[in-house]
Every structure is written in C-alpha cells, then in structure tokens.
C-alpha cells in the first residue's frame, strides 16, 4: 500500500506538472552522458569500426594546395566544424519538442548525440578522408549508385530551400516578438563588415577587432532596448511578419553576392564567438540559479493541434540528435583540412557533443525558465502558432537574469540576438549554396542564363519566398504559419542523414567490418522520416498548404527510392564480400 502511494506521488510529482526536479541535475546528467559517449563509445567506433590510422596520409597532406587542402590544427578545425553545424536548429527543435514533455526530448538528444549524430558526423569525415576528401554526394554515386547520387542532390536542394524559408520565418517572428532585437542584429552586420575590412584590407591583427567588435555587439543590445523597432502594421497588404521575411531575403541575396571576406567570413567568426559566449552564459546561469523544472516530464495534456510524438519527435529534433546537414559540412570542408586521421574523432564526434550540449540547454531553458507549470502550459497551449525562439528566449532570459543578475529585457534581447545571428548566418550561406547549385545546373544542362549570378540568386530567393509564403494557411496573415515547414525540414534532414549513414555502411561492408553501428541508426532515421512525411501529407492537405504538400510528396518518393537503393547496394556488397568464401 505504501509502495502504491509512493508510486502515485511519483507519478503526480514527475508526470503531471508539479515537478521538483532541479535543472542542474538534468544539465549534469546530460553533459556527463554525452561526454561519456565521446570517451567510451567514440573510442570503440574509432578503434574497432572505422579503425583510424595515425600513419594514414590524409588528403590535406597528399593533395595539399594551401587553398582548400591545408592541414589544420585539430582544435581550430573542431571550432569551425562545431560553429558551422551549430545554428538555430538545436534551439528551435528542442524548443518545439518539449510540448510532449521534457523527458522524451532529453532522451532523444542524449541517445541521438551518442549513438546517431556522433557516429554520423565522425563517419562522414572518415569516409570522405579515405576517399580523397570527396563529398558525401560524390561518394553516394561511387558507393551506392548514380541514381542515389541524383536523389542526394535533389534532397540537398530541398533541404537548403527549407532551411532558408524556415529560418527567415523564425527570424521574422523573433523580430516581431522582440522589437529590441532589431538594432543589435542589424548592427552585427555593420560590425562584421568593419572587422572584414580591418582584417582583409587594412591587415590589422586579429585580437583588437575581435575584442572591440564583441564589446560593441553586446553594447548595442542596450541601445536596442532603448530604441525598439517595429515595422508598420500593414504595407501594401503585408503584415510585419511578411515585411521582415522580404527584407531578410533581400539581405540574404545581397550578402550571398558580396565578397566573402567582407561579410560572410567575419559574420561566421562573430557567430562562433557568440556561440561559445552564449553557451557559457546559459550553463553558468543554470549552475548558479539552480532553477526548478516546471514542465512535465511527459505532457499528458498535449494540445489537440500537436502531431503525435511518434514519429514526429525524431524529426522535430534533428540538429542536436542527428542531422544530415552535418555530413555536408564534414565532407565539404572539414575532411580537406584534417591533419591526422585520428583527429576525425575529436572533430566529428566532439562537434556532435557540442551541438548536443546546445540542444540540452535549449531543453532546460524551455522547461525550467517559466515561473510555474501554469505559465509553461499557457506558452505551450497552441502547436500551430508556437514560437520556439520566443519560448527559448523567455525561459533562457529568466534563468540568465536570476543566475547572472542581468535585467530580464537585456537577457531576452541578448538571447534573441544570439538565436537570430545563428539563423542569419545559416541563411547567408544557404542562399549562396543554392546559387552555386543552380549555376551548376546551368552548366550541366547547358542553360547559360542560369550561370548569371543575379539570375541564379533571384531564382534561389524566389523559391525560398514561395515556400515561406506558401506555408501560410488559407485565411491567415501572409508570412505566418511558416513553422509548419519545420517537420518537413526535419524529415528531409533525417533523410539526408540516412543517405550518409548508408554510404558509410556500404563502405564498411566493402571493408568487411561490422556495419550494424551505422546501419541501425540509418534504418531508424529513414523510417522515422518516411513515417513523418506520410503524416504530413494528411495535415498539409487538410490545412490547404499545397506547396508543402507538393514538397512532401517529392520527399516521400525520394525516401522510398533511398530505401530501395540502400537494400540493393548493401545486398550487392554483401554478395561481393561472400564470393571468395563461396569459391573455396
């Protein structure tokens, strides 16, 4: 009877809102788990599966040209691999996922970081390094089939389209929600350009521009509080959200065409500094203020508009658990700069651990940053119009102001600026990459006009705008409802991750090594992606979001073909591996 009473209290305490768990416990448990994953699981994978060889001559040495192929210090390489992959997604995804309770999100982030993301990112670097630093897309053609490679390029294009659209929608919503963020965010563009000119043209040393630039960046946050900027309620029938989306894409188009040394390079640099400062501030604030988790571990009162936790949890949190986008980064630039093969473990796996840490603090912010369960429940009462960045900012600012003594408004503006800068730099790079893809299509299919930078950029931005505005449900103000893209973005991201894991698995089978450590995550994420896409079909059709419906159908077709190509490639390699034994 006592045991039953205890269980009843535990259920009431933990699962039904009145929670007394301390966020420090969650933070420490999570960090210990993912670092243990790095210490033990990544070591096992490095030694037994990928079998890293310190004497292997990496492409940075064998193909060194001091331009793309340059051996780089592993700490520097880890730094820019981590800052390249860590964007707004590890904040938005967990921010949304806590609608089902903090526990499922926490478990997926921890398990995903250790057994999925770590193996995926690490493996993508290893596979690329062992194949002359070729990209995962190229390897897909070599290892699986040319059809799979075509699918890969299509999926990459859709992914870029979606990431640009959803981040534009998120930034626009953040500006509308937090008008004090406008001046600091756009000042960062100006600060970045000044740093770019000082370092590239004037050739000053790195330290003073870094220190002064960072100080200015945080100083203008105060200016933003004094001069909040709100766009007019309606211009040409466009609400503020839509106006911001147009401005953002105009900016992204211009930024993608400027010389990289002037804006993209210094912006990425500032972004990296922001990331480390932000992580330090938030974890420090949690340790000092020891906030209580008020969100339920499992939410028994999920809003009716929310999709089912299974399979949507696994695509809602992509970055922070596993993300195909990271494979592009790993095999795009990181593999070309890897000094020694064993560095891949630190750069790839530890990069995933860093992103898991960012996702973890986002979970803590939205679980422990509200004053009470009632306040949390009010914030999470509507899935369709939920603003994950706003929830993260509110929760994180509460924790930061309690722990570090900052004013709530200052902390809220600081976190909004941080999230927006993360999303903004991804948009800059994303539009640029899309332009390259379109120009490449112009070369491949002999359509000269596509080689024109302005035309290619215009097409890329137009496609993103079509998606960002096309996601608006009928009758809603233009530019709203864009977060409906998020599950589709997660689905596509996971599909790309599945493709990368397939390539790694096929290489392992060819080498006669165990493939279950990459094949199991591959089957899981691809199945979840396909299941989520099928659920999305019904939702998008019912909501009249036909643009998203069309993309969803395309993703489903790609997912089915991926699975067929996967089976075919693996069966082929298994037969090839068994042939000498059959001949004996």
């Amino acid at each position, binding site marked *: 009877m006592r045991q039953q009473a205890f269980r009843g209290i535990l259920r009431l305490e933990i699962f039904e809102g009145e929670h007394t768990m301390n966020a420090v416990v969650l933070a420490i448990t999570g960090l210990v788990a993912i670092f243990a994953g790095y210490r033990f699981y990544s070591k096992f994978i490095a030694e037994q599966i990928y079998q890293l060889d310190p004497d292997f001559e990496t492409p940075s040495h064998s193909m060194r040209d001091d*331009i*793309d192929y*340059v051996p*780089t*210090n592993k*700490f*520097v*390489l880890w*730094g*820019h691999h981590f800052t*390249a992959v860590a964007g707004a997604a590890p904040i938005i995804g967990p921010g949304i996922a806590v609608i089902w309770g903090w526990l499922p999100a926490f478990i997926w982030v921890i398990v995903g970081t250790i057994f999925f993301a770590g193996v995926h990112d690490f493996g993508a670097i290893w596979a690329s390094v062992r194949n002359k630093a070729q990209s995962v897309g190229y390897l897909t053609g070599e290892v699986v089939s040319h059809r799979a490679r075509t699918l890969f390029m299509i999926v990459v294009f859709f992914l870029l389209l979606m990431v640009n659209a959803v981040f534009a929608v998120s930034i626009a919503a953040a500006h509308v929600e937090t008008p004090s963020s406008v001046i600091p965010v756009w000042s960062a563009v100006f600060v970045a350009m000044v740093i770019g000119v000082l*370092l590239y043209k004037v050739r000053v*040393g*790195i*330290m003073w521009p*870094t220190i002064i630039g960072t100080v200015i960046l945080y100083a203008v946050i105060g200016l933003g509080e004094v001069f909040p900027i709100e766009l007019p309620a309606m211009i040409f029938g466009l609400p503020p959200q839509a106006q911001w989306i147009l401005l953002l894409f105009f900016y992204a188009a211009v930024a993608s065409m400027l*010389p*990289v*040394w002037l804006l*993209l*390079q*210094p912006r*990425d*640099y500032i972004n*990296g500094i922001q990331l480390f400062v932000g992580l330090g501030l938030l974890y420090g604030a949690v340790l000092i203020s020891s906030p209580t988790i008020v969100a339920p571990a499992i939410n028994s009162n999920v809003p009716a508009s929310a999709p089912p936790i299974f399979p949507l949890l696994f695509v809602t949190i992509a970055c922070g658990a596993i993300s195909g986008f990271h494979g592009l980064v790993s095999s795009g*630039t990181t593999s070309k*700069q890897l000094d020694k093969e064993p560095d891949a473990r630190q750069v790839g796996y530890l990069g995933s651990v860093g992103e898991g840490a960012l996702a973890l603090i986002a979970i803590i912010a939205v679980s422990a940053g509200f004053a009470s369960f009632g306040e949390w429940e009010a914030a999470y009462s509507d899935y369709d119009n939920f603003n994950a960045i706003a929830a993260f900012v509110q929760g994180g600012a509460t924790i930061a102001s309690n722990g570090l003594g900052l004013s709530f408004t200052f902390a809220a503006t600081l976190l909004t600026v941080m999230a927006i800068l993360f999303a903004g730099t991804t948009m800059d790079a994303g539009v640029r990459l899309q332009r390259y893809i379109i120009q490449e299509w112009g070369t491949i299919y002999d359509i000269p006009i596509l080689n024109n930078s302005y035309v290619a950029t215009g097409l890329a931005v137009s496609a993103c705008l079509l998606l960002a505005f096309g996601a608006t449900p009928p009758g809603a103000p233009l530019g709203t409802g864009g977060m409906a893209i998020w599950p589709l973005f997660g689905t596509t991201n996971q599909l790309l991750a599945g493709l990368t894991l397939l390539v790694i698995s096929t290489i392992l089978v060819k080498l006669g090594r165990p493939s279950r450590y990459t094949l199991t995550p591959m089957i899981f994420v691809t199945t979840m992606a396909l299941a989520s896409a099928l659920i999305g079909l019904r939702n998008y059709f019912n909501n009249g979001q036909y643009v998203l419906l069309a993309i969803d159908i395309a993703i489903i077709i790609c997912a089915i073909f991926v699975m067929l190509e996967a089976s075919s490639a693996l069966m082929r390699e298994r037969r090839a591996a068994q042939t000498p034994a059959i001949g004996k």
Partner: protein
Amino acid sequence: MSTSRPNTFRALLKEFYEAPYRGAIARAKRDEDDLFMLFVYAELLGIPNPATYYTLELQPILLERFHEWHTRMGLEHSPLDHFRCC
C-alpha cells in the same frame, strides 16, 4: 616562453578566422587574376585591347603562368601560334 601562449592563442584565433573561407577567397583572387591574364594577352588572341600599350611589357613576366591559365580556361592547347607551351 611567457609570451608564446598569447602568440599561440592569437595564431589559433587567426587560423579560426581564415581557415573556413581560405579556399573561397583564393578562388575569387584567381578569377580576378584570370581576367587580368585575358587583358594582357587579349591582342594576341585577336581581341582588341585599348590598354595594350600598358600590358605589353607584362607579357614576358606572366608567360610562366600561361599554360596553367589556358588549361583553366578550357583551351586544351596553347591558343598562341608563336608560343607553344604544350
């Protein structure tokens, strides 16, 4: 020894700044250099160049880069009749 750590940190920070875009910047510079090569050798390729008076003296200096340049431009063999680099 006491000044080596700040210098090491500064060097790492500089590398952190430069490494991600080193390739893109080098390729952009190479594109500018390729355009300049076209200006210098334009008259020899049959393209009128009003600045020939100024670029003529650069031709022998840039001749070493000519083979690499024409290969990159998609010309399998040297386009110049009097100069066969390949």
